[in-house]
């Protein structure tokens, strides 16, 4: 589904990702771990298409298409979803309106008619309950005045509404208490199927107890320095990252 080859990304002429390669197949969950400042979020931004990040080398291929030639909205319409580490507040735009517009834009891209009101509302309701979100959410402005935990739930809610093919969750677990973490993991697991893939970016093994990864990568200084199964996450939890730095 996603093939990254020798990717190099810089921001303000400072190289953050220095030759990263990664292969993700449909049905897989990959966890990307690593200390702060090693380029985990930069990788997420680069896949989602943030223009502030400058791809200076390598390639990203998604379902056979050159992702780097596509603007972010086209990547989204093609099924890529980024759950932000710091979701943006959009005062004045209700979540219902935002989601309906997003879903319909994506449907239009795929040549589908707009979603019916009934289907949209029942999907809202279902996902709202799944994530234990207050019923007032639909009319509240996107993320406005949300607590850290609510914002993260809102990201997973949006993911559940949009039903992406490839979801990248950038530190969705940070700022969540254990109950919220379980709820969020539950939402993510619901998306898992043989057709979808998920990239989970996290510092901690804790989230991976609930979202069981197929592959774990350790990112350090813009490169993947180790790849393993879920036991690698446990090993990191015990030993820290120091032993990998050499």
């Amino acid at each position, binding site marked *: 589904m996603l093939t990254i080859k020798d990717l190099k990304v810089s921001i303000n002429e400072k190289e953050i990702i220095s030759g990263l390669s990664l292969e993700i197949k449909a049905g897989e969950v990959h966890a990307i771990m690593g200390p702060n400042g090693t380029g985990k979020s930069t990788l997420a931004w680069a896949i989602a298409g943030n223009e502030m990040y400058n791809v200076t080398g390598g390639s990203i291929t998604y379902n056979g298409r050159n992702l780097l030639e596509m603007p972010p909205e086209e990547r989204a319409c093609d099924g890529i979803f980024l759950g932000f580490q710091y979701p943006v507040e959009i005062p*004045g735009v209700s979540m219902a309106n935002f989601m309906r*517009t997003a879903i319909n834009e994506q449907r239009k891209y795929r040549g589908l008619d707009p979603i019916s009101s009934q289907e949209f509302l029942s999907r809202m309701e279902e996902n709202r309950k799944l994530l234990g979100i207050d019923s007032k959410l639909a009319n509240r402005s996107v993320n406005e005045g949300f607590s850290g935990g609510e914002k993260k739930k809102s990201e997973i809610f949006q993911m559940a509404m949009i039903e992406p093919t490839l979801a990248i969750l950038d530190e969705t677990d940070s700022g969540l208490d254990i109950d919220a973490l379980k709820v969020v993991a539950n939402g993510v697991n619901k998306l898992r199927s043989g057709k979808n893939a998920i990239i989970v970016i996290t510092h901690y093994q804790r989230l991976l107890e609930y979202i069981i990864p197929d592959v774990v990568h350790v990112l350090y200084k813009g490169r993947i320095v180790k790849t393993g199964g879920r036991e690698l996450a446990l090993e990191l939890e015990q030993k820290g990252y120091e032993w990998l730095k050499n």
Partner: protein
Amino acid sequence: MDDLSLKYHLKDKLIALFEKHRDDLFRNDTSLISSLRERAFERFKVLGFPHTKLEQWRQTDLTGTLSHDYEQHFRPSVPPAGGLKYFECEVPDFDTILVSVLNGWFISPDNKPLTRLPDGTVIGSLAQAMLEYPRIVEEHWGNDDHSRATGLDALNTAFAQDGVFIYVPDDAVIPNTIQMVNMINLDRKLFIQNRNLIILGKNSHLTLVQCDDSLNHEVNFTNTVTEVFLGENSSFDHYKLQNINDHSTILNTTHFHLNDGSRMNTNAIILNGGLIRNDVYVNIKGEGCDANVYGLYLVDKDQHVDNQIYVDHVSPHSKSYQLFKGILDDQAKAVFNGHILVHRGAQKTNAYQSNKNILLTDKATVNAKPWLEIYADDVKCSHGAAVGQLDPNALFYIRSRGLSEENARMLLMYAFAAEVINKITIEALKITIDDLVKKRLRGELSVCDQCVLNCRNKENTVSFKIDMSKI
């Protein structure tokens, strides 16, 4: 003739007109109003039109406006053959009492210059009110000692013959909204000087929607003065919609006078206009008052909008809040001057002010000047002004959900404007204004938008170069 007199040719013309039309001008006056007129005329002769050497007019140059050859009418316009149909409001579920003003003159559907409601409220023509309620008019008209009054104020006092008069007696609560539609429609260049007088008795309530529209495509120049008196514990909700053609100028001066415990909201939604300037004076002379002054302006091309807000806290324990937001495209220009003056005795005052702008091009400009003058030591005051572009992080966030860059920009602009729109408490009006703002941002609104004349000579529609047809 030197440059200056050329520039202010209109001043000399007006001075000559005043002398020539004395009989018409003074015909409804009481003796007090006549003497005020004379005094104001003398003051105008000295002050003339404001010019850019005056501090409060540095950013707004009237030279272009004053260079036209206007007509000023001393008799009412004849109402159009089709009756008052085009004054009718298209807002659904919005039950209003319609007050129509054509080219500055009050017009009524049934030739009733004054309407009296069962609770004693009087609504109608100011000229007629001078005849029937001279004492009430004089008592409030006489209030011309505005220390910062400009030549425009004086000019209006000298020339204004008609406008809208609303008197709400003590304890009366007008359940319906009064909608005042100021329409300009004549294929001449008109100079309109009308005056409105609104008086709220103790414990009374009034909601007024004031629409400034132009139906013609001519160069018009409107100089309006509105006086609003709020009795003890009264409340006044005021909405002002300004949508005039690109060639026209509106100079609107509004004086609010607040007595103990009174509360006011005024919200100016500026959608289109060549040059629009609103001078709002809020004189909080009572204790325990609450004054909110809001505004939203969406301007493009060579449009110019100037909001000058002066809030005077004379007495203690009152609150005031100013919130103005603007979106500017092309080479449009906006000016905001928000003055908060807290007098020595006005302890426990809470006064806040915020002006935020989004500039869509390098050529659009904003001059924002917050100005706090505080002579009391136990007050809470703050101000903030911001000028910026659309937030790139927010743009990316929205695009990452599948919306195009254009739609993302549109959504953010709308969201920016919504803070002011959400202050509208009448749901039906809020929905309509919301729609007008969206249309404006999409470039679908012209001054012809609600016009039934269907002339072919449509304005070029304005455009923010963004298509939000999917939102």
